C-alpha cells in the first residue's frame, strides 16, 4: 500500500512541476528552467524546516514565494528571447541554479549531528514528516491538497478573462499587443506563477524524499516538466495530469519489469506518442470525445 501512496505523492509533485511549465506554455514561453525553480523551492523549504525548525506550511509558502521571486527576476531578461533561444537561456539558468546548490554548504549542529545542505554530499535528513509522526496517508493528502488547489486555481483562471489574456499572448503576440495587452505584464506574471508552482512542488518533493542533491535537478527533470504539458496538450490542466499519470504511472512504473532496458523503451514510447499526437494526448478532439462519452454536449465549447 505504501508503494501506491508513494507513487501518488510522486504523481502529485510531478503534476505541479508540469503545471508550472503549462502556465508558461499558455503564453507561448517554453522554459527548461523549471527544474531550477523546483530546486530553489526544495532547498529553501528544507533549510527552513531543518535549520530554522519552522512548521511545514509557512516553510512551503516562503520557499514558493522565493522561487516566484527568482522567476520574476528571470522573467524580465527572458522577455527578450523567444522560442529556441528562450529554451537555451532557461537551460542556462537552471544549470546555474543547480551548480549554485552543488557548491552550497550550510551545516549547523543539531542534536549532536550536523544538518543542512552539504554541497556535493547533498541535503540529507529533511525529516519533518517523520519527526512529527505523519503517516503516509496524511502526507499524500497534504501533497494532493496543494495539487488540487493549484489545479483549481488554474482551471478557474482559464475560464476567466485572465486565461483568455494568457492564451491571446500565446497565440499571437502582435494581435494581443494591438488590443492593448501588455506583453511584459502577462509574460512576467506567467513566469512568476510558474516559479511559484514549481517552488511548491520542490518544497513537497524535498520533504517526501527526505534527501535531495544537485543531481535531482538536472535538465532531465526540466525536460520531464515540459514533456507533460506537451504530451498532455494545452487545452486544459487535466491534460497535464493525464500525461503525468501516463509517464510516471504507466511508463516508468509499468515498464519496471523490463529492468535495465526500461529507459530504452521509455524514450522510444515518448517519441512515438509525440509523432502520433503532436498536439498532445489530451487535445481538443480527445476532450470532446470524453465529454460526449460522459453525456455532456460535445463540441459546444471548442476553444482550442
Amino acid at each position, binding site marked *: 500500500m505504501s508503494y501506491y501512496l508513494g507513487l501518488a505523492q510522486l504523481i502529485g509533485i510531478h503534476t505541479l512541476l508540469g503545471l508550472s511549465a503549462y502556465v508558461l506554455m499558455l503564453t*507561448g514561453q*517554453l522554459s527548461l528552467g523549471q527544474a531550477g525553480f523546483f530546486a530553489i523551492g526544495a532547498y529553501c523549504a528544507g533549510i527552513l524546516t531543518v535549520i530554522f525548525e519552522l512548521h511545514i506550511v509557512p516553510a512551503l509558502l516562503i520557499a514558493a514565494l522565493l522561487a516566484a521571486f527568482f522567476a520574476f527576476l528571470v522573467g524580465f*531578461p*527572458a522577455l*527578450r*528571447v*523567444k*522560442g*529556441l*533561444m528562450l*529554451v*537555451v*537561456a532557461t*537551460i*542556462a*539558468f537552471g*544549470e*546555474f541554479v543547480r*551548480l*549554485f546548490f*552543488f*557548491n552550497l554548504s550550510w551545516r549547523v549542529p543539531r542534536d549532536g549531528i550536523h544538518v543542512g545542505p552539504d554541497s556535493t554530499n547533498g541535503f540529507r535528513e529533511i525529516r519533518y514528516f517523520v519527526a512529527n509522526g505523519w503517516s503516509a496517508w496524511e502526507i499524500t493528502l497534504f501533497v494532493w491538497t496543494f495539487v488540487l488547489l493549484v489545479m483549481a486555481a488554474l482551471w478557474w483562471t482559464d475560464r476567466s478573462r485572465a486565461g483568455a489574456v494568457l492564451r491571446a499572448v*500565446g497565440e499571437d503576440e502582435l494581435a494581443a499587443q494591438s488590443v492593448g495587452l501588455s506583453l511584459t505584464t502577462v509574460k512576467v506574471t506567467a513566469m512568476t506563477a510558474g516559479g511559484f508552482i514549481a517552488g511548491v512542488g520542490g518544497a513537497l518533493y524535498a520533504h517526501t524524499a527526505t534527501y535531495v542533491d544537485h543531481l535531482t535537478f*538536472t*535538465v*532531465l527533470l526540466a*525536460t520531464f516538466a*515540459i*514533456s507533460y504539458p*506537451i504530451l498532455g496538450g494545452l487545452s486544459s490542466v487535466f491534460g497535464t495530469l493525464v500525461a503525468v499519470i501516463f509517464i510516471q504511472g504507466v511508463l516508468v512504473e509499468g515498464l519496471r519489469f523490463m529492468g*535495465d*532496458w526500461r*529507459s*530504452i523503451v*521509455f*524514450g*522510444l514510447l*515518448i*517519441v512515438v506518442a*509525440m*509523432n502520433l499526437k*503532436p498536439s498532445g494526448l489530451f487535445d481538443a478532439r480527445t476532450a470532446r470525445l470524453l465529454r460526449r462519452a460522459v453525456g455532456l454536449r460535445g463540441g459546444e465549447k471548442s476553444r482550442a
Partner: protein
Amino acid sequence: MIDFIQNTVDGVMFGSSYALLAIGFTIVFGVMRRLNLAFGASIMLGAYMGTWLHVHYQVHVLVVAVTTVACTVLVGIYVERLCFHAVRRDAALASMVSSFVIWMQLEEAAIHLLPERTYAFPGLFAAGSYEAGPFLFRTEQTAMLLLAAVMVGALHLLLHRTRFGLALRATSENPLAAAYMGIHRTWTVLCAFVLMSLAGGVAGFAILATDQQITPFFGLWATFKGLIAMMLGGMGSLPGAILGGLLLGVVEAHALWYLGAEYRDLSAFLLLFAMLVSRPGGLLGQRILSREELAFRRV
C-alpha cells in the same frame, strides 16, 4: 601578466574542442533551424563502441578512431530518422524534446555496452608538453587546435566549393526556393546530419584521446559545451561557432584560475545567459536572427 597570457593560451587550446562540437550543432541548425539535443549522446555512444572494441579486442587506436566516427554517424542517422524526419515540419519543439528523450535511450545503450563507470580511452600520443619562452603548451592540445583548424578549412571548402555545399547553403537560406530549384530537402537534411555526426565523431575522438578516459557523462557534457559555444558565437554561423568555442574556452580557463574549479561551469552558464539576453543572436548570428524571425517565434 604571464599567468593571464598562459591562461588565455590554455583557453584557446581547450576552446578548440568546444569549437569542433559547436560546428556540428551549427551545421544542422543552419539547415533545419532545429536543435539536436541528442548530439552529445550520439558521440558518446559512438565512442563507447570504439572503446568496446578496444577493451575486448585491444585494437589499434586508429581502428578505435574509425569506429567512433562511423558509429557516431550511424547513431546520428538513427536520431534524424526518428526525431526529425518523422516529426511534422511545424513541430520543431516536439523534435527537440524527442531528441532529448532519445538521449536517455542512447545513454542506456552505452551503459549496457560497457557497464562500469569509467573506461580508459586510447590516446593518440603520450601526454607531453613543450615550452616556448615562459609559456607551456601541451602536445595533445596543440594537435587538437591543428585538427580544428584543418576541419574548419575542409568544411569551408565543402560548403563553398562543391555543389553539395551549395545545396546545403541554399536550403539554409530559403528551403522553399531551394526545393523549387530541385534540391531534395529530405536528402539534404540527412546529409547535414551525417556531416554533423562526422564533425562530432572527430571532435569526440580528439577530446577523449586527450582526456584518455570516457564516462557516460560525456554525452551531456558535449551537448552543453557545443550548445553554449554555438549560442555564444551565433546560431548557424560557422565562424561564429569557432569564435564561440574559443571564447568559452578562454572564459572557463580564467574562471578556473581566478575563481576556482567550482566556478568554471557556473561562469559558462552565466555568460551564456547574459549573452542570450543582451544579444540573442550571439556574436555573429544577428543576421540569421532577423532573417529567420519566424524560426524563433513560437515553436
